[in-house]
């Protein structure tokens, strides 16, 4: 499908990740300067120039598993640590939120406005750090250059590619259930009222023309929905009113992060298919992944700053419980073992993954080859 999808997928999921982390840092009463450092470190890693260069190259999407490895790495770019259950929950929330936004997007092109909403909010997180702000603005520029010129057809292909990526993912999210935008079966509610996409007329009119192009008849019909015309088009400029609310921060102190885990019961077969089938392409994907993650610059925690662990659940007990009760089809297993056959990629990834594991797992032995698999097992 579209080879222009990965940057949008990465930036929007990253934006959702930051919303959730920001909310949990507050809920866990992490001191302001420490919380700011975490967000700053993650955002500056996310928008690193070399990394963005790799990201914006036309390419196919990664598998859900491989992409998760990227966010694992990103979430650990600072002094904060997340354990397996919290990381799972974080990734579930991010993916379901962006799936909702893509599905509800009025026009395919509006997925760009959703992205801008995320970038606008990210800039709010780092307003005191001019260097990182500059990095984000550069990415904004790149987005405008590449996506500003795409046709409606190309955006439609991008949206279809994103929807295929999120297909069969039906995790229930409590904030969506409470807002009544998600049904109890995990499917999203599609409204049949409200503002129309920009450029679409209120349905209900049939106009007939003769051979000379003169209108000879006007008839109405009952469409079944009740819509209003869009008030104005959202701004695609660096600063401006996006009009669209999809992609803005939906969490606040009063609206905490929660998830109900539920597998896609109606679609179990389709889901497990992906994880069981041996994937002969894993090696090539690993190569690409190594190149992409290699572009991330991870600052090792240095000096007196002590690290801390963030919990996506209210209590540690809940977190442990979630790790035990997670539906099987939602496991993000380690990346395919075949990877060990490719020594070069293996070493590159081991180096990269090793870098970020050192402080977290000091008990690990030094044997790189075995370590990689063990480390990935933990992802």
């Amino acid at each position: 499908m579209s080879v222009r999808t990965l940057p949008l997928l990465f930036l929007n999921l990253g934006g959702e990740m930051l919303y959730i982390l920001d909310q949990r840092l507050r809920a866990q009463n992490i001191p302001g300067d420490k919380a700011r450092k975490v967000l700053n470190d993650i955002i500056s890693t996310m928008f690193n120039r070399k990394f963005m260069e790799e990201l914006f190259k036309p390419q196919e999407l990664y598998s859900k598993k491989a992409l998760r490895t990227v966010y694992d790495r990103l979430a650990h770019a600072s002094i904060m640590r997340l354990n397996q259950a919290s990381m799972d929950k974080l990734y579930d929330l991010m993916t379901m939120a962006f799936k909702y936004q893509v599905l509800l997007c009025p026009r395919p092109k509006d997925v760009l406005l959703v992205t801008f909403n995320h970038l606008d909010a990210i800039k709010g997180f780092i307003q005191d750090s001019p260097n990182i702000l500059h990095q984000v603005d550069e990415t904004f520029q790149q987005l405008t250059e590449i996506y500003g010129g795409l046709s409606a057809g190309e955006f439609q292909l991008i949206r279809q590619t994103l929807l295929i990526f999120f297909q069969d993912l039906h995790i229930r999210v409590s904030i969506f259930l409470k807002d009544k935008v998600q049904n109890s079966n995990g499917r999203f509610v599609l409204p049949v009222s409200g503002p129309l996409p920009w450029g679409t007329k209120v349905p209900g009119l049939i106009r007939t023309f003769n051979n000379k192009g003169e209108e000879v008849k006007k008839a109405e019909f009952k469409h079944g929905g009740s819509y209003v015309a869009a008030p104005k088009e959202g701004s695609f400029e660096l600063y401006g009113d996006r009009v669209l609310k999809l992609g803005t921060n939906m969490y606040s102190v009063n609206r905490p992060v929660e998830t109900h885990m539920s597998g896609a019961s109606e679609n179990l077969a389709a889901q497990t298919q992906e994880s069981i089938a041996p994937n002969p392409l894993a090696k090539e994907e690993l190569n690409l992944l190594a190149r992409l993650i290699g572009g991330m610059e991870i600052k090792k925690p240095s000096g007196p700053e002590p690290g801390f662990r963030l919990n996506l659940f209210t209590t540690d007990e809940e977190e442990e419980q979630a790790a035990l009760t997670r539906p099987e089809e939602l496991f993000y297993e380690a990346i395919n073992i075949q990877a060990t056959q490719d020594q070069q990629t293996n070493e590159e990834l081991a180096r990269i993954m090793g870098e970020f594991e050192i402080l977290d797992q000091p008990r690990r032995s030094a044997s790189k080859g075995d370590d990689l698999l063990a480390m990935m097992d933990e992802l």
Partner: protein
Amino acid sequence: MFRRERSIPLRGSAAALCNNLSVLQLPVGNLTHFGVVHGPSAQLLSAAPEGVPLAQRQLQAQEGAGVSPPLITQVHWCVLPFRVLLVLTSHRGIQMYESDGSVMVYWHALDAGDSSLVQAVFARGIAASGHFICVGMWSGRVLVFDIPAKGPNIVLSEELAGHQTPVTDIATEPAQGQLDCKPLENRDCVADMVTADDSGLLCVWRSGSEFKLLTRIPGFGVPCPSVQLWQGTIAAGYGNGQVRLYEASTGTLHVQIDAHARAICALDLAPEVGKLLSAAEDTFVHIWKLSRSPEGGYIEVEHCHGECVPDTQVCGARFCDPSGSSFAVTGYDLAEILRFSSM
């Protein structure tokens, strides 16, 4: 009025692609055949009138180089004078099967050249015209394959250049049906094929040993994902929710319907009665009746029925019989085919 019938379960949910449902009715055994794309695989199944699936088959796109398994873009049954073939298009090529999907009789690999580095390469838009099968390309070209009465000796006979952007859909109708209502001197320019693309441009063709481009109908900035042809009238469904009807031979616009609140993803025609079905991402399916105005002779439209499929982003919809008394619908992320029939 239509009522909901028992739905047919699918092994995998339908992918978010336009025209993501193909229906083949065979008089034998009163069975209806359905084809739906899941993503890297497509599912074929036959069902008895009461909706019980009897036979199922899974087809995969041919592998090739790449990070992920190739995605299928469309499946469609092509009814030719002497045989029925199932055609599957993907990001790797075109696969043609015997109608039950059991034997692949032809494989055409896409030649991406350098363009695969900067843009997606795929085939999309399938239709039969006489003994030809026409398939659209990402480049805007339309490939014409000459199909023998039997056997695998399928030949690429022509490449049509009319579009500059990816082809979305192709519609055909037997020219014979139209000839009777045309004056003798106009028979050479009877339009029997329409191709649509991502920019909304329509190209109108006369099929034959050499296809002839008759006219172009310009787009207006939104894609045209689905197109149909009936008695010399083109029905086109657009990304802004509009349905437009044109005179095929001249390209004159005769009807403009503000039909849907979101992009249209599928149109279908019931040729016996001139009923048009339109389905869109707004969760609605509408059925229209087309007719010729008694005075001016131009085409007119009347709304017959609207059906809401709650919380379903419809991606495919087809009539299940030539008289338009039943239809089937698929939706993104939905692992069943919904069926409706008139009461």
